[in-house]
């Protein structure tokens, strides 16, 4: 086996810093513009107006949230836009002590999937919980959206600042 294995050379950060090994470094400019489409386009527009909206499947009548132009179970087109509440239920959550960019947090972030009232069972979105004691977050917790001020909204999921427990 050894006769086929070419001896390799491990490299370390120091090798590049000291110039022991030559290295080319560059950044790609990977900018993109993603077309939101009809369903997500409307969803984002409604967010800008401070509203949540779903779409009903013509076949099975489930209300999909976020809205989709076709039902993934029936493969039929969806039909009506369905206005939804801004309250919901936590169906899963996590306590995050290390952020995505490897920064340690004293106070954990609490991302949660919130099933929105008015949509079909389990139809939820991933967002953050706020004004919540991490110890008391549990599955089934009732929450409500806290929005940015109308002039600060831009048609993004971040137009909702977080979901807070309904007291």
């Amino acid at each position, binding site marked *: 086996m050894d006769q086929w294995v070419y001896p390799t050379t491990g490299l370390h950060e120091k090798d590049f810093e000291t110039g022991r*090994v*030559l290295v*080319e470094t*560059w950044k*790609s*400019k990977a900018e993109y513009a*993603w077309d939101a489409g*009809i369903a997500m*386009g409307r969803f984002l527009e409604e967010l800008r107006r401070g509203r949540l909206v779903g779409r009903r499947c013509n076949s099975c009548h489930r209300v999909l949230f976020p809205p989709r132009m076709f039902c993934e179970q029936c493969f039929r087109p969806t039909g009506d836009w369905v206005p939804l509440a801004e309250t919901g239920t936590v169906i899963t959550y996590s306590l995050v002590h290390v952020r995505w960019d490897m920064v340690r947090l004293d106070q954990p972030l609490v991302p949660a999937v919130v099933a929105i009232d008015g949509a079909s069972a389990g139809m939820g979105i991933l967002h953050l919980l706020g004004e919540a004691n991490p110890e008391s977050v549990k599955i089934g917790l009732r929450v409500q959206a806290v929005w940015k001020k109308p002039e600060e909204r831009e048609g993004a999921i971040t137009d909702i600042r977080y979901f807070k427990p309904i007291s």
Partner: protein
Amino acid sequence: MGSADTLEHPTEARTWKGNIPVWHRYTAGIAGERFLRTLKDQGKILGARCQSCGVVYVPPRMYCERCLKPLPDGEWKEVGPRGELVSFTRIFLDLDGEPLQSPRWVGLVRLEGASGVLIHYLHLPEGIAPRPGMPVEAVLKPALERRGSILDIEHWKVL
């Protein structure tokens, strides 16, 4: 699919703009490193000749691509700096697709002693048109400006 929905508000037609930050780090490998260091420190372009099939690789390789024989130190020799212009073209865009300040020529050159071709910028004096077969020479940056990159070669100049 095809829904009869139309957009009710122009703002509903939206694109989400984003950016994927991608950093690259590329090392030349053992043969490439030696090629680039020789270019930097000695101002020489190295090639490696296969004893078996006679092909001279520029830049050198660890082994012959055709017969898979190793290319030992003894077969590494200087090539060029003169050579022959094999082909050429004019470029108007940079690597990101943005227009260049001014268009540049690039030339494919077979250096004296090499089997293959090397691509680099081609410097054409005013009024001179490129033509296959033109004799050219590699112009290197001054020693202190070289840093172990293919760009240590400034361009091909027409002889």
